[in-house]
C-alpha cells in the first residue's frame, strides 16, 4: 500500500492542532504536563558545635557559600507534577557532623518536558571548619569563600569551580574541568581530572611552592612570577595537579 504524503501531512497537522487546543485548555485549568511544579525545599540546622559538613547530591548542581548564622540548605528546580516525589532532601546533625543529602530518583526518562535537574544551595556561617566534603555524581560543584582545614570536592561527571577558598584542598572529577580559586596557597592542594582542564588561581602569590603537574595530553603553564618552585619540603605547601587529557595551569590573580 502506497502511503500518500499529503494525507500524512494533513493527519499530522490535525494532530498538532488537537495537541495545541488540548494543551491550551488543560493548561488553563492547570492539569497540563506543562503546568510544572516548583521544587522548593528548605532546611536549616544550627551551626553551633559543627566541625564537619558533608554534602551529597546525585544529579543537581551544588553551590556552597558562606553567610548567615546557621546552616541553611535550599533545593530548587522545576519538574512535572508526577515526578515531584522523586526529589529528596535531608539534613541531619550528629556529633558535630552535618550531613546534607539531596537526590533525584534516577529513573530512565524516555520523554521529558523539564530538564529534571535541581540546584542545591548550601549556606554555612563564615568560620573555620575541620572538614568540608562535597560530592556529586552527574552535577557541578561550586564553592565560594568557605574555610575549612580540609576541603574535599568530588564529582564523577561535572565541573568543580571555587573562589576564595582557604585550607587543604582536594578536588577530583572524572569528566569535567576544575577551576580552583584560592585565597592563598598555605596548605597542600590536590586536583585530578581524567578528561578536563585544571586551573589553579591564587589571590596571594606564595613565596615557595612544591609543584607537581602531570598531564598525558595537554599543556602545562605556570604564571607565578616571584614564586620559587622547589622540591617537596615539609615546610612548603605542595600542589599536585594531574589531568589525563587536559591542560593544567597555575597563576596568580582572582
Amino acid at each position, binding site marked *: 500500500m502506497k502511503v500518500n*504524503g499529503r494525507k*500524512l*501531512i494533513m*493527519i*499530522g*497537522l*490535525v*494532530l*498538532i492542532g*488537537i*495537541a*495545541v*487546543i*488540548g*494543551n491550551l485548555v*488543560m493548561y488553563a485549568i492547570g*492539569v*497540563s*504536563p506543562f503546568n510544572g511544579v516548583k521544587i522548593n525545599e528548605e532546611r536549616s540546622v544550627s551551626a553551633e558545635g559543627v566541625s564537619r559538613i558533608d554534602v551529597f547530591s546525585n544529579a543537581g548542581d551544588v553551590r556552597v557559600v558562606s553567610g548567615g548564622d546557621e546552616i541553611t540548605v535550599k533545593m530548587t528546580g522545576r519538574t*512535572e*507534577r*508526577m515526578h515531584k516525589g522523586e526529589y529528596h532532601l535531608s539534613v541531619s546533625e550528629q556529633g558535630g557532623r552535618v550531613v546534607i543529602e539531596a537526590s533525584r530518583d534516577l529513573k*530512565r*526518562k*524516555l*520523554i521529558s*518536558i523539564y530538564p529534571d535537574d535541581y540546584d542545591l544551595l548550601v549556606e554555612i556561617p563564615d568560620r573555620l571548619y575541620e572538614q568540608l566534603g562535597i560530592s556529586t555524581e552527574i552535577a557541578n560543584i561550586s564553592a565560594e569563600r568557605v574555610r575549612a582545614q580540609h576541603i574535599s570536592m568530588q564529582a564523577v561527571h561535572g565541573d568543580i569551580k571555587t573562589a576564595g577558598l582557604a585550607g587543604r584542598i582536594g578536588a577530583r572529577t572524572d569528566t569535567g574541568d576544575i577551576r580552583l580559586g584560592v585565597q592563598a596557597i598555605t596548605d597542600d592542594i590536590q586536583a585530578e581530572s581524567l578528561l578536563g582542564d585544571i586551573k589553579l588561581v591564587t589571590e596571594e602569590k606564595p613565596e615557595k611552592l612544591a609543584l607537581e603537574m602531570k598531564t598525558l595530553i595537554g599543556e602545562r603553564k605556570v604564571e607565578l612570577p616571584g614564586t620559587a618552585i622547589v622540591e617537596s619540603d615539609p615546610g612548603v605547601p605542595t600542589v599536585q595537579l594531574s589531568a589525563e587529557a587536559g591542560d593544567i595551569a597555575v597563576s596568580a590573580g582572582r
Partner: protein
Amino acid sequence: MTKAEYLAELEKRLGDLSAEERAELLADYEAHFEHGRASGRSDEEIAERLGPPQLVAREIQYQLSVDEARANPTVRRIARAVFAGVGLGLMNVLMLLIPFAIGMLLLAGLFVLAAYLTVSPVLMLVQDGWSVEFLLKLPLAAGLLGLGLIFWVAAVKGITLFVKWMLAILQSNVEKVKEKLK
C-alpha cells in the same frame, strides 16, 4: 608497454563488467592503438597518452556506475558511484564524498527524529504506565505523533531531493573525467 600488454591489463582491471561491455571497451582502446600506430606513434607513446590502464579502468567503472545511477536512481547506486569516484583522487573526495556524507547524516538524523516522535506515545506509555498522568499527556502525545508524521514525509521527500542533488554533482564530475579521457 605494448598494445597487447596494455589491453591485457585493462581487460584484467575491467573484470567486474559483463563480457559484452568489456569487449566493446577493449575494441575502443584497440582502435586507439591502431589509430596511433597509423599516425606513426609507438605503442609506448600511445599507452602513455592513454594513461595507466589501472586508472583508465577506474575512470571507466566510475562512468558506468554514474550511468547506472542515472538510469535507475537509488541511494545504493548513488553510493556505489560516489565510492567509485572517490578512488580517482583527493579532489573527488572533496567534491563527492563530503556532500554525500553530509547528506546521509542529515537524512539519518531526520529519520531518527521522525521515528522518535512517531513512537513517542508508546514511549510515554512505557514510562508512565496506564495512569492519570499518561491520560493527561495524550494531547501532547498526539502533537508529537503529528510532528513525527510530518518529519517522516519530509525525510522521504529528502531522499528524493538528495538523490537528485547527488546525481547533479556526479554528472558534473563525470563530465570532467570524460574531458580528461578525450
